[in-house]
């Protein structure tokens, strides 16, 4: 089919007869702005082909032009199988239809409606729409181009019939889908999509039950193991209890202990006897020692008495010469003391003389300083007077440095302003003639010679009685300068008056005088500084000098009074007398040192004598004390008797000790040794410990056994073993159930996977023709890309860069639209190849395409245009300028009205 003409009237904005001009084979483009009526024309074409002429449905009603009571009339010319046809339909009002082949009407009315469908391969039926057959795929309305082609049932049939001619059909697809659905349903009850047990499903429930059983079983087995262990322990403890409670063993242990205790007792008794003998032996030995000591003490006492009597006589001989030596030493010391007293009296007298000389020397020295002090007093008084005068002059002189600087600044300003005023003022030049002298005056001043001056102010020139000439400067010339100059002059006057003078010259003279006064002031200050007197303290200094002079006079008076002299001696006389006194003092000091040495020597002799007397006296005391003690023990009258008695006691003690020592040795031979006693004690302790340990062990065993019996009774009484065995069986049973479910899952998954694989293979084979037609278009836009198709020719994804598939939904809107259009073109090409060429109509498509991509899409559209008609309706006139093909336009008011 190829559309050759479209004429409308009473359609949308085309109230009058309008035609699309330029339609032909290949690519056709109708580029017009918005509201041009392109989409209306598209809908009119569809209605003309697929709507019954007498329908009043919404599609047709929407075609009518508003406010015009004309019928909706559409005439469509088309070429089909090398025949030219024209179908004209009028809708709404005076509905009619006419189909012509060439110029011959071949059908009219309903027959015309249906004959068109028959020609185009659309199955007869009511309620035809554009979705029928291939038109639904290839006629893409406004806003539809980005949608994935979803062929209707009829369109799918058309596509499938085209494919069947090449590869056959997808056999058993529906059954396979049904089986797959059942498999998925059953699998979904068992596992999730990721293969994990489905919550609430049989497998999950069995697995959960298995986990719980294993947990219970582990707990039960653990408890059973504990029970088993307790039973074993109980058996062992019972055996141990029987062994420990064996009467023969108990009897033997008791007997052994009794025998050991007896042995220990015997040994202890022998040891006690030995101890008694030992004490007696030690007491006897002590008696013997005391007798020996008594005899030795008496003999020592006798010897000491005899020796002390000899020492007493000797000490008394040494004491006799000591008294004479002491008297001689004391006489020498007395003489030396008298000489020292005489020397001290002389020294005191000379000290007083020396003090008087010192007072006189001081007075003389102060008197020497009196004359320079008087001179300094006069100098200071003169300087003070000069300083007062200078200060007074300065106080009366106001021509300070700042005042003088201000005067200079003001006069400089006045000079500058005056020069500027004069420069701007009219210059008046008068040259006197020979007879003019004395007859010409300027103001009140007669001229005697030529004059040239600036007329700063109004100037009156009188020429005798001949004329009066007035020169007036312009009122506005230099007014500002004059005003400023006048201000400066006032300031200068005020400055002069402030300084207390009458003129500038007087002010400048006062300034010079003030500079001289300031120089004098600085000189006076320097003199004071040179005298060491701070600024402005000369009066204080003069006062201080006066006071010092008075102090000197007072000192002289007091010294003369004290020394009882009329006048002060000279300094030389005082010095001579002081030297004499110093020589006397040196002589007395040497003499005194000699006397002190002699007295120290005699005192040392006295000390030695006292020490010797003390030592000898102590010896006599000690000897007497010893003698008194010894004689009390051994009086001279009883000496021999006491010594004889001591010898007799010693002999008796020696006999007693021999007897006791022999008895001790005899018992020592009989008693067991220390080691033996230790061994006997250890044995008794060991046997007693063993017996006690055994009893304690039996007690512990009794308690342990009672505890174990209690625990066993508790554990065994609730049927633990039976319960564990039951859990084992349940666990095994559930384990098998889980395995059965797992096997079932594996089986179902294997079956599903196998059917899936086979289904996909078949579908891929079914899609092969479409792919073959799609590939050139795809290469135009997406070189080397590969499209993935799903059920019902759905686009599922595209591979562009390597093996990774991009899902269709994740592509950009522009890319989705381009791919959708390409798939439509491929479908159109496939149908066209099977002898059913259907025009491709794109209304306002490729709106999302960028400049590069739209050029590639144009290539694809032109490729499609090589074999079938492509009609592009667009409002993007510039973007579609390079599409090429036939340029269509709409012509209105053409020819005669359309009559079906």
């Amino acid at each position, binding site marked *: 089919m190829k559309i050759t003409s479209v004429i409308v009237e009473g359609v949308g904005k085309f109230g009058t007869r309008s035609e699309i001009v330029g339609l032909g084979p290949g690519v056709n483009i109708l580029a017009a702005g918005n509201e041009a009526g392109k989409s209306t024309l598209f809908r009119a074409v569809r209605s003309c082909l697929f709507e019954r002429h007498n329908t009043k449905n919404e599609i047709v009603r929407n075609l009518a032009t508003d406010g015009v009571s004309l019928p909706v009339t559409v005439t469509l010319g088309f070429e089909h199988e090398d025949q030219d046809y024209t179908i004209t339909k009028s809708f709404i009002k005076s509905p009619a239809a006419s189909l012509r082949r060439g110029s011959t009407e071949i059908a009219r009315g309903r027959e015309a409606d249906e004959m068109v469908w028959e020609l185009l391969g659309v199955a007869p039926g009511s309620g035809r729409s554009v979705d029928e057959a291939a038109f639904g795929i290839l006629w893409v309305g406004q806003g539809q181009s980005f949608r994935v082609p979803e062929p209707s049932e009829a369109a799918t049939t058309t596509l499938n019939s085209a494919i069947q001619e090449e590869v056959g059909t*997808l*056999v*058993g*697809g529906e*059954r*396979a889908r049904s*089986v797959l659905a*059942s*498999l998925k349903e059953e699998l979904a009850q068992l596992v999730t999509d990721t293969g994990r047990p489905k919550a609430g499903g049989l497998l999950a429930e069995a697995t959960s039950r298995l986990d719980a059983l294993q947990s219970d079983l582990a707990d039960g087995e653990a408890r*059973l193991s504990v*029970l*088993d262990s307790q*039973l*074993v322990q*109980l*058996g062992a403890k*019972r055996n141990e209890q029987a062994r420990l409670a064996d009467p023969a063993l108990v009897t033997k242990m008791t007997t052994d202990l009794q025998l050991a205790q007896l042995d220990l007792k015997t040994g202890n008794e022998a040891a006690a006897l030995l101890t008694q003998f030992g004490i007696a032996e030690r007491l006897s030995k002590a008696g013997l020692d005391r007798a020996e000591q008594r005899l030795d003490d008496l003999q020592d006492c006798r010897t000491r008495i005899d020796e002390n009597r000899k020492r007493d006589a000797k000490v008394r001989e040494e004491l006799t010469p000591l008294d004479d030596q002491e008297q001689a030493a004391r006489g020498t010391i007395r003489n030396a003391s008298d000489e020292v007293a005489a020397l001290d009296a002389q020294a005191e007298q000379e000290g007083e003389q020396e003090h008087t000389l010192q007072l006189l020397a001081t007075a003389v020295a102060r008197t020497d300083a009196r004359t320079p002090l008087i001179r300094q007093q006069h100098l200071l008084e003169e300087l003070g007077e000069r300083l007062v005068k200078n200060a007074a002059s300065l106080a009366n002189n106001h021509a300070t440095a700042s005042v003088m600087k201000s005067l200079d600044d003001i006069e400089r300003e006045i000079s500058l302003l005056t020069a500027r005023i004069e420069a701007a003022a009219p210059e008046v030049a008068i040259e006197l003639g020979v007879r003019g002298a004395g007859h010409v005056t300027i103001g009140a001043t007669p001229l005697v010679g030529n004059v040239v001056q600036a007329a700063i102010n109004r100037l009156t020139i009188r020429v005798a009685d001949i004329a009066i000439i007035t020169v007036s400067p312009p009122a506005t010339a230099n007014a500002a300068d004059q005003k400023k100059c006048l201000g400066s002059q006032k300031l200068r006057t005020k400055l002069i008056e402030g300084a207390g003078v009458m003129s500038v010259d007087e002010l400048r003279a006062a300034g010079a005088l003030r500079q001289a006064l300031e120089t004098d002031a600085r000189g006076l200050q320097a003199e004071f500084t040179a005298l060491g007197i701070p600024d402005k303290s000369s009066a204080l200094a003069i006062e201080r000098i006066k006071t010092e002079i008075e102090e000197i006079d007072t000192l002289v008076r007091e010294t003369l009074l004290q020394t009882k002299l009329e006048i002060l001696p000279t300094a030389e006389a005082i010095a001579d007398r002081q030297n004499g006194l110093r020589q006397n003092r040196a002589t007395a000091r040497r003499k005194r040192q000699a006397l002190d040495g002699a007295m120290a020597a005699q005192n040392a002799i006295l000390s030695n004598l006292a020490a010797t007397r003390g030592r000898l006296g102590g010896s006599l005391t000690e000897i007497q004390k010893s003698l008194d003690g010894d004689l009390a023990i051994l009086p001279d009258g009883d000496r021999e008797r006491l010594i004889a008695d001591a010898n007799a006691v010693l002999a008796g003690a020696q006999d007693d000790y021999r007897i006791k020592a022999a008895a001790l040795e005899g018992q020592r031979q009989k008693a067991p040794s220390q080691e033996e006693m230790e061994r006997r004690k250890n044995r008794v302790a060991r046997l007693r410990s063993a017996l006690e340990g055994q009893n304690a062990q039996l007690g512990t065993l009794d308690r342990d056994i009672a505890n*174990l*019996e209690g625990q*066993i*009774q508790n*554990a*065994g*009484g*609730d*049927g*633990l*073993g*039976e*319960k*564990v*065995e*039951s859990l084992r*069986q*349940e666990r095994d*049973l559930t384990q098998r159930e889980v395995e059965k479910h797992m*096997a079932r899952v*594996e*089986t*179902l998954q*294997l*079956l599903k996977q*196998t*059917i899936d*694989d*086979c*289904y996909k*293979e*078949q579908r891929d084979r079914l899609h092969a023709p479409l792919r073959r037609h799609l590939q050139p278009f795809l290469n135009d836009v997406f070189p080397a890309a590969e499209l993935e198709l799903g059920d019902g020719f759905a686009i599922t994804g595209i591979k562009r860069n390597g093996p990774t598939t991009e899902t269709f939904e994740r592509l950009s809107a522009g890319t989705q639209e381009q791919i959708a259009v390409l798939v439509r073109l491929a479908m159109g090409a496939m149908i066209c190849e099977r002898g059913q060429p259907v025009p491709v109509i794109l209304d306002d498509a490729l709106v999302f395409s960028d400049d590069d991509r739209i050029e590639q899409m144009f290539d694809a559209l032109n490729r499609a245009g090589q074999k079938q008609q492509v009609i592009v309706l667009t409002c993007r006139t510039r973007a579609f300028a390079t599409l090429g093909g036939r340029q269509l336009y709409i012509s209105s008011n053409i020819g005669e009205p359309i009559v079906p």
Partner: protein
Amino acid sequence: MRFIHTADWQIGKPFKQFGDRESVLRQARLVAIEKIGQLAEREGAAHVLVAGDVYDSEAPTSRTLLEPLERMRGFANVAWHLLPGNHDPHRPKGVWDRLRENGTPVNVHLHLTAEPVALDQHATLLSAPLTRKSEVADLTEWMDSAETAPGLIRIGLAHGSVVGFGAGGEANNPIDPRRPGRAGLGYLTLGDWHRTMKVGPVVWYAGTPEPDRAGSQEYGQALVVDIAGPDAPATVTPHVVGTYRWLTREEHLADPTELDDLETRLRALPDLSSTILRIFLKGTLPLAGRAVLDRRLLGLTAALFHLEADQSALLIRPTATDLEAIDFGGVLRNAADRLRSMTDDDTIGLVKKRRAEEALVQLFVMATGSGEGTL
């Protein structure tokens, strides 16, 4: 001298694989005691010797502990002699002490120590009780030197595995089968082996009176033993005392037509409702045959007390008809062909081959709608 020889009652044994009918089988074990008592009374046997494993566990519940005593109490003229086994060894404060502390009926005697006990004026019982689950020594050895009054029949009572008798015993508790000769025993009453087994003229395992597992004894039995005198030979007669039959069958299938015969033979078994059948199916079936098999097994399951069908050795090989039933072509047929090729592929391993077979069966069921009524 006539007495009953029995063993391995294992009272309290759980049967979780039977679900809500577990209690039926537990109850059957108590019923077996009554049947033994009835047998004793019927045969005029004054003593029932129980050769160990009276209880399944060392720590049964109190009810489990006492239930068999109450059954035995009902036979006042019969003396029941109980021996600890490896399942219920005698340990202090263990199951037997619990029994003693609780008190036993006067006609129930516990043999907990290795010592001669007079049964009556004709016989003495020499017991070898286990005091732990596993003994490495032969506990019957003491019988060789046990002194008994002359002229009495010496009867041994023990639980364990006869040395050299194979690995059938449950525990390593060896018993020398020559013990009767060495110890002058007129009969050695053994327990542990769950099948009735004659080891020698006077050495027998009684087997369990109520079977508890497949592949062992079909019917529960007890032995009636007659011994005329100390040197007389023992006469042993097995009697069925069990209620449930534990049957194991192996069937080979090569064609679906054999399913009719199989079902007929199985339905012809006596006492179907008290038969526990474990059937091992081998051979090869087509997909359709397998679906039919499943339906028939479902019917048999309802007829039997319990049916366990092991089809792990039954190969599924689809025929052309099977595959056409799935589809003549197209997706499902391709999938079926692919799965079939997997079942023939020896390189993928047995588990995967098995999964492929099951997937094929599943596909057949889903594609043909023949799944209703399968197990």
